[in-house]
Every structure is written in C-alpha cells, then in structure tokens.
C-alpha cells in the first residue's frame, strides 16, 4: 500500500502525543499527520479527547509526552510543544476557533477582526510609540487592516453588521465571525472545533462552502473537529478517529466509514443514523440556546 498523500507533505505531524490530567489519560500516544492543503477531520465520541488534542496543538496545554511539528510551505519547521500559546499563533501561524464560541462580545464585529491583526499592526505602529505621535505609516497600515477585515466580512456575509457588537449576532453568524477572525491572523493551519455545532442545515451548507473556499483561495490547511458526519464526509480529505484518547482509525472518509471499529465506537449504529441523532441533538441544543 502506498503512503497516503498526507504523509508526504504534512503541514502538521503529531507524534506520540500523550496528555494526562492527574490519573486521566485524555490523549494516549496519538500520532497522525495533516496534509498540506487538506481538510483533515478529527472525529470521535464525546470525551474522546479531540478538544484536548487541539489544546495541545495550540499551546493551551503542554502535552505530557510527544512531539507536534508544524511545517510551513517555505520549509521552516516549528516544534509546537515547546512554544508559548501566543507564539504558536504569531509565528507558527496556527489559528483556531473554540467549541464554545469565544468572541469579544462587547466589541464590534469590525473590532474583533482588527484585534486579530494585532501583531502586524503593532509593528506598523512602531510598538505604539510612533503611532501615538501620529506617524503616517500606522494610518496606512490601519487602513489596510480594515480592508482585510472588509474582505473577510464580505466572505462571511456580515458586512452590513460590521458596526454591531459581536455579542448581538445570531449564533450562526458568531460561528462564522470566529472563523473570519481566525483567518485574519493569516494562518498556515486553521483548527476548527465543531464549527457546525448548533447550525441549521442551510447554515451548515454555507459553512462547507466557506471552508472549501478558504482552502482554495487562501491555501490554508484545515483541521476540524466535527460531529456532523454529513460535513465530515462531504468536505474532508482525511479523517482521524479517536476514542478514549486512542486513535482507532485513520484514512480517507470512505475507508473510515467502512472501518468496523469506527462503527462500533459509534454505538454500533450506522453513520447515517449517527448523523441523524446528532442533528436532532443539535436542534435541541440550538433551541436551548434561545
């Protein structure tokens, strides 16, 4: 069997990562690779350790053991487990969204996108000093960053709400805004933690288009956690399945779907049924939110 495409040019390689919380082993000796330009899905039942993997990748947790290597297109590599969380975003260029949305709810939509461009703007403002005395270069840089924000607002269809507080947006729009905010950091790898959770089918479809578009036009590689099988099967190139912190399957969507261990993990029911259950659950969750 030839090596799968994601092994050849991985943007992220996770090698033997283990994460313990006291006695609980949330992730156990996990290894997988996410290919450059791929959409890689990380799936698994509740509590499988998916979010924990994300937290290790983005530096919020330091893995107990193992290595996380990020490779840029220009060949530079970053060892994520050794970097501070903000550095992972700033220099290794990994952006993420959160399972429970974390927007700056008291700031406007536009401000949210400007905060995401903090680092380039900080440099343009001469670490604040030059900007404070009214240096023109900063003005220009700010204009550019507003342009960039506008570009993303257009993509997520929120231009007309740019001046509204983020906390006022409907749920689906908040999800999209969080993705746009992450994209404003110009990431090499974008990690999405259950982006479709709580979305209705139409919104979910739009999300798929947005993700495919991001990959196509920005060339960003995507890693996503998803419960919604329809999303996973439709857009991902590569699926990794976790259960109790252990990888139980890894391959193309078709391969994973046929894997008996995966079926067993999902309570022995068909994927379609799982999707149905999930959808029903999502509706309930959405209702509970309102």
């Amino acid at each position, binding site marked *: 069997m030839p090596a799968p495409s994601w092994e050849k040019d991985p943007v992220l390689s996770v090698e033997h990562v283990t994460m313990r*919380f006291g006695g609980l082993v949330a992730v156990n000796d996990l290894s997988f690779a996410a290919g450059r330009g791929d959409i890689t899905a990380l799936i698994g039942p509740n509590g499988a350790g998916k*979010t924990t993997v994300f*937290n290790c990748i983005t530096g919020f*947790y330091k893995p107990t053991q193992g290595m996380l290597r990020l490779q840029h297109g220009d060949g530079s590599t970053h060892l994520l487990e050794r970097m501070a969380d903000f550095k992972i975003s700033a220099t290794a260029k990994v952006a993420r969204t*959160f399972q429970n949305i974390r927007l700056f709810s008291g700031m406007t939509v536009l401000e949210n996108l400007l905060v995401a461009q903090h680092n380039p703007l900080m440099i343009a403002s001469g670490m604040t000093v030059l900007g404070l005395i009214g240096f023109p270069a900063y003005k220009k840089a700010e204009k550019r960053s507003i342009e960039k924000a506008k570009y993303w607002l257009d993509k997520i269809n929120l231009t007309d709400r740019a001046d509204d507080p983020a906390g006022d947006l409907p749920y689906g729009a908040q999800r999209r805004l969080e993705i746009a905010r992450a994209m404003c950091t110009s990431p090499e790898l974008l990690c999405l933690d259950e982006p479709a959770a709580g979305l209705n089918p139409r919104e979910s479809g739009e999300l798929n288009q947005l993700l495919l578009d991001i990959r196509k036009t920005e060339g960003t590689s995507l890693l996503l956690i998803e419960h919604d099988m329809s999303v996973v099967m439709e857009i991902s190139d590569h699926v990794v399945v976790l259960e109790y912190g252990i990888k139980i399957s890894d391959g193309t969507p078709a391969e994973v779907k046929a894997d008996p261990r995966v079926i067993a993990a999902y309570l022995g029911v068909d994927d379609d049924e799982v999707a149905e259950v999930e959808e029903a659950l999502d509706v309930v969750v959405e209702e509970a939110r309102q």
Partner: protein
Amino acid sequence: MELFLQQFINGVTLGSIYGLIAIGYTMVFGIIGMVNFSHGDVFMVSSFIALIFFLVLTTWLGVASVALALLIVMVISMVLTGLMSWTIERVAYRPLRGSFRLAPLISAIGMSIVLSNFIQVAQGPRNKPVPPMVTESIALWERNGFTVSVSYKQLIIIAVTAVLLACFWFLVQKTSLGRAQRACEQDRKMAALLGINVDRTISLTFVMGAALAAVAGTLFLMYYGVVNFSDGFVPGVKAFTAAVLGGIGSLPGAVLGGLLIGLIETFWSGYFSIDYKDVAAFSILAIVLIFMPQGILGRPEVEKV
C-alpha cells in the same frame, strides 16, 4: 525555648480569633464566590456591640459576675451582628447577585466604608478602653527568670473557639442547612431546581459568618480590652489571608489558616521586628495568592478551554 512556648500560646490565641473571622470569608466565598469585603468591619461592629452591652450590664444593671456578663454579651452580639449582616446582604448584595461581577465587590467596599464611618460618627473616633475583665493566669513553666504562662483569657478564647467550631462543624456537616449550603456551592441553579431556597441559604450563610465574627469580636474585646472604629480593616485582611492560606471554601482550612497566621504574626513580632509585622502578613497574603492560590486544603481550580 521559653520565648518560643510563650509565643506559641499567644499565637494560638490570636489564631483562634482570626480563624473565627476567616470562616465568614470562606463560607461566603464558597457559596457566592464573593470576597465579602465588609466582613472585617462587621467584626469590628460586633466588638462595639459587645462593648456597649458589657458596659450596660456591668454599670447599669450591676451584673457582678464577669463570666455571666461575657456570656450574655456574646449571645447578644451574635444575634445583633447576625441581624445586621442579614440586612447588609439583603440591601447591598442580593440585588446585585448575577449582575456585573465587580458590582458586589464595590458595594462591599462601600459597605465597609459605611460601617467604619458609621461607628466613628455614632460612637466617636477615640479608642474605647474597658477595664481588664479577666486577669488571672497560670504559670506553666519557669526557668532563668522567664515564666511561660497562659492567662485565663487565653484559655477562654481557645476553649470557646474549640467548642464553637465543634458545634459549627456539626451544623454544616450533619444538618439539612449544611447540605443546602454545599448544594448551593456546587451549582446554585440546580439547587434551586431541586427546591432549595437559595436566597435563604445564602442569607443564613451570611448570618452564620457574622455570628462567628461576633464571637471573635467579643473575645477580641476581652483580650485586648480596647476597640476602635478602624479596627476592622487589618484583622479583616489577616483573616482573609487565613482563609486563603487554608484554602478558600474549606472550613477546616480557615481554622488552620487562622492558626498559622496567628503563629506567624506572634513569632515574627517575637523574633524579628514588630514594625514590620503587618508587612509580613500582607506579604504572606500576596505570596500565597500568587504561588498557591488553592491554599493548603483547597482544591485547585482548573480552567478548561
């Protein structure tokens, strides 16, 4: 060695008082997650209530037995301080529950200013000395002209604290009120759904904390023989330090922390400079909060992303 023993006894005495106050901080923090900033001043007011009734009993009503007077005074002070604390919670904190997080803290700071200034206005700014109430002491050990002694006052303080803590422990561990409190600590919404009267439980928590502070206030008055309207702040901060040191939210922790703070303070004054004893207390507070915010007996807080 003699100095050490003597300071140990003094430290335990002082620590008992801090421990009694610290319980009020710890319980309120445990149940509504708020630093009850005015608790130190509640303690001070309770000491004034004790002072007033002690004078009334001994000078007006001619109660001759100091022990009886102290007992009555302590009970009155517990009741009235509890009533006051209930009112404060009702007026200044309850309307702010569930709103902006800083609001209750600011309100509590305001309340602390109100209490100390109210006493200043109502009772005057001067120190209030009472004649020594209990003077006897027992010499434990004598060597090289240095006597290690424990005074009756100290014995009373330690004994009263121990008995009260035992009753209190029974109250929160074995009664339905204690269960309700622990339920509210875990999850207030869920407790309410299960039919626990959350408002009343919180009120009672304040009242219990205040009653213990009133015991401390009475003992403080008996021990030092003087109170002042500004005596709430520093003991308040030290008791809070004790609560944090022991692990905030934990009752045994509060007592343990109180004893430790009392010991540290007396040993510091005994062996180092008395000038810097409050600096030591504040430094411990800062160091504990920075390096071991979960305290000795508390549970560490994990932040999930």
